[in-house]
């Protein structure tokens, strides 16, 4: 080896000249800088102190699904600050810490900036940077082959967070044009059971708790102040009602969440027993004659007597034995809530991510229904959101039957069972995708049974080709064969339509506030190019164009939205009691509309799967496939009303407290209680694992944000001191938490703020990829590791633990919801 001396360096200079004097001096490198170099200032002038113009650009947050309207401040092309958009009627100028830390997403030093092709074994971490042209050539060839073979369904598109126009471009345009219906989502790991319960009772999902006008709020298992789907909208209105009108908020939770702490009262409850308490409260309401007989008689499909006789088995004393909530408390709260009308019940995963989650949610909706709290001011309302019109492509879509997991997983998985898709792929009896594309979806990290997810994703025989679309190198992206670098939400074009707690639809858009770094491209733009390469026709040529065309179709001013970010029709009034709207005769006597005698439903048979009117008449509304799509109205007496419009199931237009769908499958048609099987025969020292979210982290997608991870990077397990004592565990001890699918080691945090039978470990942490801040990798030696100017300020070392390693991917038997909160574990000192 040549030693480095000054003389050698001189030789190096001469040698460099020889290299550079070669045929092509540039060797593929184009000069980066052009223009004439001068000694004096003058090309551009920069004032050292002032003269910096801050541009203000409105757009929308997308750290979490609440999707609040924000304004971004940009200085010298750099995003420096994010605030709430005061013009928004939804979030009213407010955002949370996660929203402010969106800047960290843009400037994450570990973003993927170029398309990448796997260079080593799958998951080995060896990559080759390739051009977009090469990447799309490769992908097009694979997709084209499937088209040519007549098997578009072997292209599986699996998305997680995809909403608004981002969703419509892919799901209502690109995928139908291509012809695949093998489209996976991620609702079953979120709140699928809640939506299915709502589809069984009042139809289309998303319930909006009108807390700002409520006299009392009951909360079963929702972390309103930290993590609801409409977090900022709901939490600020809840606090306002409490502070300004003295509204009481009663929170049932296994854990003293920050919501429980802010509540008027926290009532600890045993996991999976919320349904028992709700049924007992409903029983008290009926016995005490506090119910709204008008609503029950006119709008539901049960009678007061039926309800009374069904509910009387559920006494407060019975519920106390099951839930641990005292009978007197149940009774007094039921009476108080019954008298406080209007009131509203908030519920979320704490209540529904259980074996009996659908029944719990049905009982909750029943309790509000019998009190007449449905869709009234201050009650539990149907969601109102902006109704965008937009370009759509049509096409036949074939699909692999793997979206609902394995045979027998659930009876009504209308939101699919995404956490069982990999199992279905492994099983293989319904086929396997040749191309598996994941978009904003983290099959490895976000589902339970992490190890099995990894094993299946790594197996090239099961999944021959995986494409990951992501701005970041996540655990799932690391197992791909091709990575397409997406932009973050602050660099995209989209329109959005999140529900509005003012009950007035708000139109809003997202626009790039900074230009995308590297060669990142918004995937919706990439899809337009893919379509061209595949010879598919779309009615727009970019995401921006789609937003523009949607604005035209929806009669919303695009330029106005660019300037203000949000718009709502000033003429609109809050839409309460939409079900009571009477239809005009021309609406239900229109062509193709039939009256179904059995249910009183008027429906347009042409929108169903029936081939002829005779077939439709013979089968009737309930038995005809997709008849709900043609729902027009509900006949009650001699009038026809808008009613409770069904979705996904051929339910009538009534509020169905009694469900024939469940009866058909052998369940009690009226909301009932059945226990979580695993909780029935627990050994004395076993505990129930609960996971939860905190206010400064988003599910799995914010741990790369340094500001957030600085605040929250450790998640010791919460254990009640009494339980800990019996196990010989002290605060700060290392403990082992073991379930039937695996074990994890973490630290114990002793606190009275958790039910004695529960061990609570937050979600969010324990990443092993996702960049230096999330995984701790690459930043072992903080002094020497460098990735950005303040990386040396990373003073913390921990990355926490991920509980999903030990949570089985079990579905609830009705909706297929992942039973996150049912896991029985053994806890011992490690």
């Amino acid at each position: 080896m040549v030693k480095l001396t000054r003389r050698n360096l001189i030789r190096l200079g001469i040698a460099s000249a020889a290299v550079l004097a070669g045929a092509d001096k540039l060797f593929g490198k184009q000069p980066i800088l052009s223009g004439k170099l001068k000694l004096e200032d003058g090309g551009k002038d920069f004032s050292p102190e002032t003269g910096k113009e801050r541009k203000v650009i409105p757009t929308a947050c997308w750290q979490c699904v609440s999707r609040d309207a924000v304004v971004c401040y940009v200085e010298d092309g750099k995003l420096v600050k994010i605030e709430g958009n005061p013009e928004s009627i939804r979030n009213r100028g407010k955002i949370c810490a996660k929203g402010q830390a969106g800047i960290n997403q843009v400037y994450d030093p570990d973003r993927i900036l170029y398309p990448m092709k796997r260079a080593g074994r799958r998951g080995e971490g060896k990559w080759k940077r390739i051009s977009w042209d090469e990447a799309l050539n490769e992908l097009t060839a694979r997709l084209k082959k499937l088209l040519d073979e007549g098997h578009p369904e072997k292209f599986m598109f699996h998305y997680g967070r995809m909403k608004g126009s981002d969703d419509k471009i892919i799901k209502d345009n690109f995928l139908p044009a291509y012809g695949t219906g093998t489209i996976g989502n991620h609702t079953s790991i979120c709140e699928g059971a809640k939506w299915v319960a709502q589809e069984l009772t009042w139809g289309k999902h998303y319930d909006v708790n009108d807390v700002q006008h409520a006299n009392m709020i009951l909360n079963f298992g929702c972390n309103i102040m930290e993590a609801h789907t409409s977090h900022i909208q709901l939490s600020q209105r809840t606090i306002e009602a409490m502070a300004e009108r003295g509204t009481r908020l009663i929170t049932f939770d296994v854990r003293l969440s920050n919501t429980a702490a802010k509540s008027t009262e926290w009532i600890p409850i045993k996991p999976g027993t919320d349904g028992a308490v709700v049924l007992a409260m409903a029983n008290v309401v009926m016995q005490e004659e506090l119910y709204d007989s008008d609503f029950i008689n006119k709008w539901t499909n049960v009678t007061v007597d039926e309800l009374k006789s069904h509910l009387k088995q559920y006494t407060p004393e019975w519920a106390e034995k099951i839930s641990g909530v005292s009978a007197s408390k149940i009774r007094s709260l039921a009476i108080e809530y019954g008298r406080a009308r209007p009131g509203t019940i908030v519920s979320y995963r704490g209540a529904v991510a259980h074996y009996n989650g659908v029944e719990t949610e049905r009982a909750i909706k029943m309790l509000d229904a019998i009190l007449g709290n449905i869709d009234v001011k201050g009650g539990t309302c149907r969601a109102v959101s902006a109704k965008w019109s937009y370009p759509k492509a049509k096409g036949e879509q074939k699909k692999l039957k793997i979206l609902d997991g394995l045979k027998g997983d659930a009876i009504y998985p209308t939101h699919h069972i995404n956490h069982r898709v990999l199992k279905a792929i492994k099983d293989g009896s319904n086929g396997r995708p040749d191309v598996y594309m994941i978009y904003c979806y983290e099959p490895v990290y976000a589902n339970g049974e992490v190890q099995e997810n990894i094993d299946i994703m790594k197996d090239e025989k099961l999944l021959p080709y995986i494409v990951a679309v992501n701005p970041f190198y996540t655990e799932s992206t690391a197992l791909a064969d091709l990575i397409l670098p997406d932009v973050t939400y602050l660099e995209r074009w989209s329109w959005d339509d999140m529900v509005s707690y003012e009950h007035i639809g708000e139109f809003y858009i997202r626009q790039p506030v900074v230009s995308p770094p590297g060669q990142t491209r918004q995937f919706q733009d990439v899809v337009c190019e893919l379509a061209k390469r595949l010879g598919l026709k779309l009615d727009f040529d970019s995401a921006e164009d789609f937003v523009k065309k949607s604005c035209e179709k929806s009669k919303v001013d695009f330029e106005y939205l660019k300037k203000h970010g949000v718009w709502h029709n000033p003429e609109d009034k809050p839409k309460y009691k939409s079900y009571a709207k009477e239809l005009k005769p021309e609406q239900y006597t229109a062509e193709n509309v039939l009256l179904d005698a059995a249910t009183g439903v008027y429906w347009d048979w042409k929108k169903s799967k029936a081939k002829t009117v005779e077939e439709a008449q013979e089968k009737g509304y309930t038995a005809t496939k997709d008849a709900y799509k043609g729902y027009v109205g509900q006949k009650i007496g001699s009038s026809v009303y808008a009613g409770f419009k069904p979705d996904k199931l051929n339910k009538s237009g009534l509020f169905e407290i009694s469900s024939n769908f469940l009866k058909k499958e052998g369940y009690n048609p009226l909301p009932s209680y059945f226990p979580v099987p695993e909780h029935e025969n627990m050994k004395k020292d076993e505990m129930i694992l609960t996971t939860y979210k905190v206010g400064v982290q988003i599910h799995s997608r914010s741990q790369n944000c340094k500001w957030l991870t600085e605040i929250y990077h450790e998640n010791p397990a919460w254990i009640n001191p009494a339980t800990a004592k019996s196990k010989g565990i002290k605060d700060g001890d290392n403990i082992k938490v073991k379930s039937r699918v695996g074990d994890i080691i973490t630290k114990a945090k002793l606190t009275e703020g958790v039910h004695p039978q529960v061990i609570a470990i937050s979600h969010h942490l324990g990443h092993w990829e996702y960049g230096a801040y999330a995984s701790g990798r690459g930043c072992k030696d903080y002094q020497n590791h460098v990735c950005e100017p303040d990386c040396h300020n990373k003073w913390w070392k921990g990355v926490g633990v991920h509980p999903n390693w030990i949570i089985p991917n079990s579905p609830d038997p009705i909706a297929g919801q992942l039973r996150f909160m049912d896991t029985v574990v053994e806890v011992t000192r490690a």
Partner: protein
Amino acid sequence: MKPIERSNVYGLLSRVYSSEPSKDFLESIRGSSFIEALGQDFKSASLNELVDELSVEYTRLFIGPGSHIYPYESAYRKDKGSIDKDIKNFIESRGLRYRSDFTEGPDHISVELEFMERITQEEIKARKQGDLKKASSFTELGKKFVNEHLIKWVPIFSDRVIDVASLSFYREMAKLTKEFILLEGVDKNE
């Protein structure tokens, strides 16, 4: 070192860090006396293999995904918050523009090296034209840029590459880079 030699080294190193090596670039290096400095595996591998391996290595070292070495001054300057903007402003205020399709940060190592290449070229030109005053002004400009920027971070950057590189090419190039910049920082008026 003579200005022309310094200029050449800046040009060469700028190329090395700007992107994956092209085949003709590697061929040219192998044809020069340089090869002695670059280690056995560089000498013996076939050219096509080398292009492939070095592409993967370049990606792993400087781009990711996953943990990698950041080739930007701002990452190393704990004392300064907006060094990327400062660099861009400084370079642009000297009349140069960034290529419009250049997608790296403005303080990428290959930008700073190329900027020095341009300065040394101007210095040579001025000297040829007999404008010694102008030439020494460019010398001063270069000195300032090296001492305010390159010297402050390129040696640390190079050490990281030397540590992490698995193929000799980038390891040896990083050694050369470090020595060269240290030398530049000390005295370049020989």
